[in-house]
């Protein structure tokens, strides 16, 4: 038990340090970096949440985009308060994910993966066609409320920490265990009377709720959004964070997103090698470090690797 208390303490300390650090990030490049890392961590955690049921959710980019546009419409177009924008972004993403999830999560197999990929691209195409939200050139003037301007990085970090905690608690709860059970053997879950289909849909909805908030935070950090920001590449980069970090523990996406986001900044210094950078990151992680950085750290610390059951259909 002492061990788990130590872990809790360590996590708490790290969170406080992150929060305190982001308070002093100001509004320059450091602030942007803090926000990018925080949002990427959030998206990676959201992506990983759907991996608990053994699915890859490429629609995350679509839901992030939806959240971003929804919140942008609220604050920049309608002049509504930021809080309303956040909530409506999360709700819009959740509602749409319920519809998409209900239709595509009924069967096992790659149907959801493929459709989620197409979904993201279709949403992006729709944005380019709507004049009201700026079409191809996108939407400008999405600012966080004046009160928050100086503390926006800290605000983002705080929200991200809260959502991470919520996702972690959900994963540890009975609901989370059902999700993992569905990944391992959905037939058994079905036989004990749990509605597998609706549980999967709910899992996607929770993940999309988080993605929607991520989108709103992103839109208000960048102040400008355009359809191109929310192509499936966003989802693929998120996948890279998880693969590099390791997916057996929620620390994986946190670690992976932080490391890759910072490394990518260095790599971009050499030229426009984003594709190669993230592509190579995924390929190397998949082929050489199956449990990511988390697995390597576990090995270094001499901890037994957590029993990891991957879905094999």
């Amino acid at each position, binding site marked *: 038990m002492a061990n788990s208390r130590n872990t809790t303490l360590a996590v708490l300390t790290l969170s406080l340090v992150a929060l305190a650090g982001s308070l002093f990030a100001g509004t320059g490049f450091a602030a942007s970096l803090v926000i990018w890392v925080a949002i990427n961590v959030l998206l990676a955690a959201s992506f990983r949440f759907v991996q608990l049921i053994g699915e890859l959710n490429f629609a995350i980019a679509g839901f992030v985009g939806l959240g971003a546009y929804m919140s942008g419409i609220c604050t920049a177009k309608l002049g509504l308060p930021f809080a309303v924008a956040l909530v409506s972004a999360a709700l819009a993403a959740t509602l749409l994910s319920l519809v998409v999830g209900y239709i595509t999560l009924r069967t096992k197999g790659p149907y959801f993966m493929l459709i989620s990929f197409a979904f993201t691209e279709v949403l992006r195409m729709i944005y380019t066609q709507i004049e009201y939200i700026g079409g191809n050139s996108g939407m400008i003037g999405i600012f966080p409320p004046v009160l928050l301007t100086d503390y926006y990085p800290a605000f983002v970090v705080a929200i991200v920490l809260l959502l991470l905690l919520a996702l972690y608690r959900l994963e540890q709860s009975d609901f989370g265990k059902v999700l993992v059970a569905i990944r391992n053997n959905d037939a058994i879950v079905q036989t004990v009377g749990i509605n597998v289909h609706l549980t999967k849909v709910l899992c996607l909805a929770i993940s999309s709720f988080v993605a929607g908030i991520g989108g709103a935070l992103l839109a208000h950090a960048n102040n400008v959004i355009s359809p191109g920001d929310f192509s499936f590449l966003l989802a693929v980069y998120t996948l890279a964070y998880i693969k590099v970090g390791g997916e057996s523990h929620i620390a994986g996406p946190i670690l992976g997103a932080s490391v890759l986001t910072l490394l990518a900044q260095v790599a971009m210094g050499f030229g426009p090698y984003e594709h190669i950078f993230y*592509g190579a990151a995924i*390929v190397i992680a*998949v082929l050489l470090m199956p449990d990511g950085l988390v697995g390597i750290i576990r090995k270094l610390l001499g901890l037994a690797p957590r029993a990891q059951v991957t879905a094999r259909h």
Partner: protein
Amino acid sequence: MEIFGQLFLNSLQISAAYILFSLGLTLIFGVMKVVNFAHGEFFGLVLLLIAIIVPWINSPALPLALNYAIAGSVSILATMACGWFLYHFAFKKFQRDMVGSFVLSVGLSLLMQGLFLEFFGGVPIKLPDLFEGNLRILGGAITTQRLILTVIALLVAVAMCWLIAATKLGKALRAVAEDHEAAMLQGIPYRKIALYGFLIATFLAAIAGALLAPVTVISANVGSDFLIKGFIAIVIGGLGSIPGSIIGSILIAVIESVGGYYFDPSLATLAMFVITMLVLLVRPKGIMGNG
């Protein structure tokens, strides 16, 4: 009537390429349970190689058709070599691991696209026409070269279907797709058949690319556009099903040409997506998918 003929011709042209492309996707899935996200990159690689070779060996002494034939064959062979390499060093380890192989192929696809951009540059290329002239069929107009290329593509597709339906290799491929363990018990060498399936699929993507070379604007990310349509086609048709992929491709092509004519291309893509969702509502595993 004239519009109808024209739309029919357009659908035919588009569907020929989609059929080749999605046949490969569905074949790999059936045999290896791998959804190959990098399938579009094989397609793109052929186009880019042809775009380099054709101007390079171009000379007055060499007829353009022969030039295309040489460039096409070399590029297809090179792409298949690339496919063989990727099979041995990557995909082989992830057979029957659907999620793992998908992640791997996503990474490979991104990496290859980055490399293409690096080596071939970002400037789109349009190669010279293979044949001049127009034809009129059923009241619609079609360029001679498009007609010839479409016919070749359809012939390849028919040959492919014959290979799968009537030859011993095809039988083995189908057996492995249905139940690979039972197939192995019958003495079918699974690993070998999986490699053949992968190479045939790569060949199909490559030949689709080669046949589109004279009529497409070639750029480094030309494969992505095909990939999304290919996915939709095999999802509508039912993953792993050969007839399903053909039906799906034709459906996609009809929507694209009719929707593109009466509305605009992006609306046609939206329509494809909505129709896919409707199909999945009624048939969760696609039109030809069972279970």
